[in-house]
């Protein structure tokens, strides 16, 4: 966009560009978010949740790019993400921390026809507040038992009309909405973060904490195994080392046939295990007159 074009911008646009430029200059982290089809009221909820951590702003892509260039961002790296409808998150926190934060709270909304339930949809027992009328046949279709009391529809017992993953029946949508049930989750679709002149694509930005738990477990198991191997003298390792030494002693006693009352179990078990192994190796050919445990 040329300077000539910029000069022609109306004042509100000029102001908005300045505001974004200011935010960009004051933020270490920028996250670009796809908000196509994202409900405006939910964006407001997110804005509230992020308060103190980050700001979220919806703006036109053209204005954002002007501001980004002015703020000294590497717009070449950004451009491919600045398509469609976007919101921009500005923060001074670690971009991964923001991503984890956003993934942790579930935003819910009313269903629209064609939606699938993200959680169980239960029509609760009791007064629905709805006036008895044609709506009764809708309840009937949904197999929700009702009765009419004082002209209002009462549900007789809690009734599940959709399980997680099930499509929500289209005729149920108005009832669900009236009852204030929000069984569909909305999630911001992160596109990428820009931090320290680096683009972090969503594939890296979204963190699966289970993987980290698994990695720590693995590191811990490796450390214990290595510790046992060198008899590293701390209690957590020694417990395992003692067990290993004991098993070695038992195995050695058994294999050597060193019989004492203490080693009798190991020795005799070993001998019998061997005997049965040998017996079973010929059991197809010889009737030994015994039962070989399989």
């Amino acid at each position, binding site marked *: 966009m040329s300077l000539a074009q910029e000069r022609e911008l109306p004042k509100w646009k000029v102001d908005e560009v300045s505001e974004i430029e200011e935010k960009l200059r004051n933020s270490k982290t920028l996250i670009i978010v796809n908000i196509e089809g994202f409900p405006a009221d939910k964006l407001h909820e997110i804005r509230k949740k992020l308060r103190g951590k980050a700001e979220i702003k919806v703006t036109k892509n053209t204005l954002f790019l002007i501001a980004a260039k002015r703020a000294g961002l590497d717009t070449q790296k950004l451009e491919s993400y600045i398509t469609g409808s976007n919101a921009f998150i500005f923060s001074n926190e*670690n*971009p*991964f*921390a923001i*991503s*984890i934060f956003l993934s942790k709270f579930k935003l819910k909304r009313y269903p629209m026809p064609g939606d699938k339930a993200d959680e169980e949809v239960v029509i609760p027992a009791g007064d629905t507040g709805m006036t008895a009328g044609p709506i009764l046949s809708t309840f009937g279709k949904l197999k929700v038992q009702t009765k009419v009391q004082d002209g209002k529809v009462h549900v007789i017992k809690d009734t599940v009309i959709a399980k997680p993953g099930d499509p929500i029946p289209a005729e149920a949508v108005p009832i669900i909405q009236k009852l204030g049930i929000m069984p569909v989750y909305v999630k911001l679709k992160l596109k990428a973060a820009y*931090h*320290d002149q*680096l683009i*972090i694509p969503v594939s*890296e930005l979204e*963190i699966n*904490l289970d993987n*980290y*738990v698994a*990695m*720590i*477990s*693995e*590191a*811990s*198991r*490796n*450390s*214990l195994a290595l510790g046992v191997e060198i008899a590293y003298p701390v209690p*957590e390792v020694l417990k*395992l080392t003692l067990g290993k030494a004991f098993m070695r002693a038992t195995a050695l006693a058994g294999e050597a046939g060193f019989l004492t009352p203490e080693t009798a179990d190991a020795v005799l078990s070993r001998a019998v295990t061997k005997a049965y192994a040998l017996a079973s190796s010929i059991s197809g050919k010889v009737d030994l007159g015994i039962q070989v445990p399989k």
Partner: protein
Amino acid sequence: MEYIYASLLLHSAKKEITEDAVKGVLSAAGVEVDEVRVKAVVAALKEVNIDEVLKNATAMPVVAAPAAA
């Protein structure tokens, strides 16, 4: 796993797992540090109860059937 070992070392030494601390340990080990990975590890580990995970990892006898990856 370098980033995990570095973090566990800090944890074990009762130091906070910060970006600078992890970078310092990795550099001392001669590892070329990837800034983005450090950030990811530090942010992720903030959300993980490391002591709990370590306790379970040691409790080896209690093993669930391996979940298919």
